[in-house]
């Protein structure tokens, strides 16, 4: 049984069937890519994993526990982290402050007052945050304002903020969307490194085939809200049904 088990998930928005009968199993310590043309329901599916949307039917199990009806913050505390299409970071804060927040969230687990302690005295957490910044090669930017960095750096920071919490499952929503080629390659390298060094499972939604084929162990192709096929990257490449869904090649 996989770390993430999706069974018979369906979601409808008014008259639009966004997802129908989605079955998916993400195996532990693999990179599972979900691809598909625009409007295939990829982001809807991801939103069903993190508590932003509640599916009309079906179940989503993470490590055997249902994720349905839980709020995003509860799901995050269970060990599911999410990277967004546009990096979601604390733009007004410094890089180091950005790193400290997930450290506190991980340690405290929920709301704690801590109104009379100083952030500067939390040497254990500071060390942890700093080590993470070293790992993603950003320690020289620790005092920089997060909003003033390049998109690639913001992505890197967002990833570091997720990883510092040691999540079991990392969800990535088009992690290289809108990035320059160099930034894309950097992100791929970073993700590869994470995959090798850490005990982590990744589910990734991506448009860029270059990214998908250099990272994924398994690929699910989604079309019109239903999984078309699930297979290894090599088999997906050669599958005529996939070509059809992507390129609109009908019988000639």
């Amino acid at each position, binding site marked *: 049984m996989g770390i993430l088990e999706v069974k018979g998930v369906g979601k409808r928005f008014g008259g639009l069937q966004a997802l129908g009968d989605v079955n998916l199993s993400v195996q532990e310590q693999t990179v599972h890519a979900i691809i598909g043309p625009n409007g295939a329901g990829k982001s809807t599916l991801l939103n069903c994993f993190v508590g932003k949307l509640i599916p009309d039917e079906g179940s989503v199990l993470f490590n055997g526990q249902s994720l349905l009806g839980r709020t995003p*913050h509860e799901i995050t505390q269970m060990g599911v982290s999410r990277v*967004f299409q546009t990096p979601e970071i604390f733009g007004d804060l410094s890089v180091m402050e950005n790193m400290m927040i997930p450290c506190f*969230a991980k340690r405290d687990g929920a709301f704690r007052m801590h*109104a009379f302690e100083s*952030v500067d005295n939390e040497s254990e957490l500071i060390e942890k945050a700093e080590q993470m910044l070293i790992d993603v090669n950003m320690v020289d930017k620790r005092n920089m304002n997060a909003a003033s960095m390049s998109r690639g750096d913001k992505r890197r920071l967002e990833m570091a903020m997720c990883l510092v919490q040691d999540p079991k499952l990392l969800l990535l929503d088009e992690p290289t969307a809108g990035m320059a080629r160099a930034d894309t390659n950097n992100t791929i390298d970073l993700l590869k490194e994470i995959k090798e060094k850490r005990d982590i499972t990744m589910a990734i939604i991506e448009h860029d085939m270059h990214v998908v084929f250099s990272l994924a162990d398994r690929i699910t192709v989604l079309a019109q809200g239903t999984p078309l096929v699930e297979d290894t990257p090599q088999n997906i490449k050669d599958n005529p049904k996939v070509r059809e869904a992507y390129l609109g090649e009908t019988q000639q």
Partner: protein
Amino acid sequence: MLGLDKRDTKFLLIVIFLTLATPILLQPFPESSTLAQFNAGYPDLMQRFAIFGIFAIGFNILFGLTGYLSFGHAAFLGIGSYSVVWMYKLLDYNVIWGLPLAVILSGLFALVIGYVSLRRSGIYFSILTLAFAQMSFNLAYSVLTPITNGETGLQVYTDDPQILMGATEPTSPHLFGIVMNQSAKINLGDWVFTFNNGYYFCAIIAIIAFYISLRIFRSPFGLMLRAIKSNQQRLNYTGLNARPYTLAAFVISGMYAGLAGGLMASMDPLAGAERMQWTASGEVVLMTILGGVGTMMGPVLGAGVIKYMENIFSKINEQVLHSWFGWLPDSLEGFVIFIAEHFVGSGWHMTSGVLFMLVVIFLPGGLVEGGQRIKAMFNNRGGDDADDPEHHPKHAPHVAE
């Protein structure tokens, strides 16, 4: 010192010095000069500086850190005042009974109002708080007359129980015999300095309030509040629920407002419903924005500027203007005075309005940003090559400046 780093300790010491030396610093002009009317070192006004400073510091914890704009904080001000006056009526004139009650009661009200209002954010939150404050105002003004004495305002009467009242006890607000409205006057040449008990009482509480707020700014809790303002979505996906944090900030700022309201009644043993009106809520918003939202010093500065203008500009009348512009030719003098008189006296709101617009347009970070720019101008005069934001990305500013 006191759990602060070197820089903050220095900052706190400067604030303490400025607060304690206010009666001297605000009295720069000799009594006989025509500028003496710009002196602000009289007890009533200095007390207001300190009290509204506390109010604004507390408001800034909510608005400055979390970005939630409350339009209802005057309700807590009123609750604070009523609590203190009730303690005068029931026990005695010692403010030690009323002030803690003011803080606790306003905190409880803030808990209820915040719990409901914080279900929404942005403009809807502001409207909800405004609605609650107007409701409190109307309750105080008419419905709850037995408790608030309606439009007359709550005050102490001779037939009130005052069960702790001793035979020799002062008959005005005091702290264990230190009477609030007593002052020591010192004449130095042509200068008169007034050292008022009430002011120093408020000032010491204001310093403590400032210190607590400084600690909150530097704490993990403060960091979370800033994270809420910056990106609530990311905070959720970091595994934290924003609601308890915003509620805690709301309650703390409500308690600050209650304390300020209690101090108002400690200086002058009266409490009226008008203290709860929405204009009073709006005033603290203006103070915070004018001084600098989210900065430590800004709200205090804003409170000072607005109270100064309210008291000093409103005193300037036509005679004063004539004495200033008397040297101009008659026709021109008439014209200048015609223009100027709209900005002074009862027209001081015009001046503060213009100042507010100028600050919002040119200094979005408030007066504090103005100060920082001037400081940066002096620091940069050595001639750094042209600032290229691409290659010199800005560093995150230290929040306290």
